[in-house]
């Protein structure tokens, strides 16, 4: 396997192994997050000038979808402030090794919730209310605060990071798309793990905590549920954990066998198309319906939204793969072939976000200089005029992203397909979806 072990480089290894660099980032992130909550609650109700909206939905989103996820997988989760207060309180410590006896209830999450359906639902909820959420600072402030407190609450009841694993609306799709990233955290040698006594990476030791994400590194084959918290690097007594540079989408060679994950792929795939239609498409009525949360038109929109994601897209997909015969059951083939939608879905989001982010990026400068809209001018940029950026490269960049996504998905389809069956239906499906997306975007 063609991997380059980054942790061989002493600087990288030391930086990851020490708790302090990460802690420093944590503190900055947490302060920024709380500031964003405050700005959302007390700042100007004008979204485009409110720090919370501009920093969370423009700056953070841009970094997340254009950089962090495609190149670092769950890299964002490595520095995310949301679960931190809960985690610290749960452990009763920030750095010190945990007590032997758990502080709080430390229950195991019930079996029926140990999947990502809750994340699918929480994402869809945010998606349906997104027009209000993305433009109303108050609502953004409340939602950000709610995430913080729900994470604390779940930490009090359940063990490890229940919020991240099972509820976080963002975590679900970061996990899905992190499989495409060229970064992974894996063990170096399986035999060392087999012989390892006590498995401190999972169970914790004096050197640190057991995996907060409830993952046993020794058995890890894909990025989805590893939050890159780097704790196992610190706890593994055999120096058996590596962070590797690897080919893009290496995880996708192992298709999913879970329906919740397969539907996650459809949810993200469909949501990107619907968003492009609502925000960039020419239909005023559609836009109005999406924006007037709570009205009859909005309920119609919600029903259509859900129908597209849960019936139309998976239905057409199923019909497509039914045209070819295979040895596996239809359900198995549905799940494994849905893996092919992951790279294309990511590229849909990249292409869509490019236009959204470049159009609104100029608000960042103004919000930076006057974060509470109190008339400050900290960096002299408070009056930076609104101006779409890089308009000339936008369309070519979007087209490129979509074409790359299509090719990438086609190759993924070939990889995950069982031998002897045709991938043509899946490729046609992807091609049609890409054409629709291209038409919506350009």
């Amino acid at each position, binding site marked *: 396997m063609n991997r380059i072990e980054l942790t061989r480089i002493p600087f990288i290894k030391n930086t990851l192994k020490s708790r302090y660099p990460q802690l420093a980032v944590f503190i900055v992130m*947490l302060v920024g997050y709380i500031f964003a909550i405050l700005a959302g609650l007390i700042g100007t109700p004008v979204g485009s000038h409110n720090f919370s909206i501009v920093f969370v939905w423009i700056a953070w989103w841009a970094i997340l979808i254009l950089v962090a996820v495609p190149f670092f997988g769950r890299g964002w989760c490595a520095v995310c402030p949301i679960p931190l207060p809960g985690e610290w309180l749960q452990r009763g410590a920030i*750095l010190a090794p945990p007590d032997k006896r758990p502080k709080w209830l430390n229950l195991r999450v019930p079996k029926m919730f140990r999947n990502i359906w809750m994340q699918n639902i929480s994402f869809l909820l945010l998606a349906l209310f997104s027009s209000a959420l993305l433009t109303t600072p108050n609502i953004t402030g409340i939602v950000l605060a709610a995430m913080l407190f729900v994470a604390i609450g779940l930490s009090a009841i359940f063990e490890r990071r229940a919020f991240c694993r099972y509820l976080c609306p963002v975590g679900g799709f970061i996990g899905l798309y992190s499989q495409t990233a060229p970064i992974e955290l894996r063990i170096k040698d399986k035999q060392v793990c087999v012989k390892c006594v006590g498995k401190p990476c999972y169970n914790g030791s004096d050197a640190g905590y057991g995996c907060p994400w409830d993952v046993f590194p020794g058995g890890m084959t894909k990025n989805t549920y590893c939050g890159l918290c780097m704790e196992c690097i610190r706890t593994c007594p055999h120096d058996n954990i590596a962070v590797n540079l690897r080919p893009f989408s290496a995880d996708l060679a192992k298709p999913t066998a879970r329906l919740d994950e397969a539907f996650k792929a459809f949810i993200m795939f469909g949501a990107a198309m619907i968003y492009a239609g609502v925000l960039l498409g020419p239909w005023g009525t559609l836009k109005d319906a999406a924006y007037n949360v709570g009205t009859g038109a909005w309920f119609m929109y919600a029903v259509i939204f859900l129908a597209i994601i849960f019936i139309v897209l998976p239905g057409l997909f199923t019909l497509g793969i039914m045209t070819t015969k295979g040895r596996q059951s239809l359900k198995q083939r549905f799940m494994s072939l849905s893996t092919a939608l992951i790279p294309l879905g990511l590229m849909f989001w990249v292409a869509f976000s490019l236009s959204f982010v470049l159009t609104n990026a100029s608000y960042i400068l103004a919000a930076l200089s006057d974060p509470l809209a109190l*008339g400050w001018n900290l960096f002299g940029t408070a009056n930076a005029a609104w101006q779409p950026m890089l308009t000339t490269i936008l369309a070519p960049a979007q087209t490129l992203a979509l074409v790359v996504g299509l090719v990438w998905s086609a190759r993924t389809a070939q990889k995950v397909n069982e031998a002897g069956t045709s991938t043509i239906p899946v490729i046609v499906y992807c091609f049609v979806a890409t054409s629709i997306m291209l038409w919506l975007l350009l």
Partner: protein
Amino acid sequence: MKRPELISRILIITGILLAVGAPLFLWARTPLIHARMAEDGGWNPDVIQAETGKPLHLKLTSDDVVHGFAVGQMDMQSVDILPGKVTEITLTFDKPGIYTFFCTRWCGLNHWRMRGTIEVTGGSDIITAGGSSEPASVPLYVSLDLDIDAPHDSPVIPNEKPSAMNGQLLGANLPIDQSLDYYLSHSPYQVFTDLSDTSLTESQKWDAVAYLWQSNTTPESLANGKELYAQNCAACHGENGAGDGVFADDLAEAGEASMQTMEGATDMVMQTPVDFTDPSRILGASPALLQGKILRGGMGTGMPMWGVIFTEEQIWDLIAYIYSFQFEYQK
């Protein structure tokens, strides 16, 4: 507890306290005056205290669309208030009283309702309601005992726009009272009927009326009136006075809606802005009557009360301009 753990805890707690405390503190220390469309609350706060001679420093921000800010009966440039931005302005009041501040941008249908007051106290002076906001003398419509809500249509209207130039050519020896009082208290139609004993033709009489009106105004006054009109009146009454401003349709609709709810008050045929190009309406109104309408406002119609905002002179300028929709004046 080990040192690093302790330090981390202190750092984190300080960070959280700062992240919560600093914005709250700074926010509480910077009182902003928020402008919203009238239907969403208008000005907040809408009462501001000030003292004579002491500069009043205001920070204004808009929570929705572009608004403007100006204080009535004060010699000041109005300022724009942009959404999410802060506009600062410093005012100094010489006289105590209750001043009215108002929105100067056509922000929405109820733009005219966006008003607030500045209560200016001066040293030992007691504020008198009205204060400087009330004209020095009793307005003419009060002393003339005019019912400004009574219908006042002119039963006769000229066939074509009366020309002041032609009126002037008729000579100065017409039996018209040249006093200012006569002009102010008479409608063009009343002057027209006062000329009934003369041998003039109907259209000549109207020309003479037009001349009387022209001689009671100045080009400066007309220009002033035009500017004030464009800023303050055109949104409803229309750029060309035809009662067809950008809000006119909305006003009519809002009027219908409110009529359905206000049973018994149907005689308030409200909301449609007056058409100043309609001769019977304007030729039947005296300057004093128009002054009353502007000063007091339309009481329940969409017409706001301007007495607190315009100076007396500004109102006369406006009236001069309104009549110019009816008369052909010398260019």
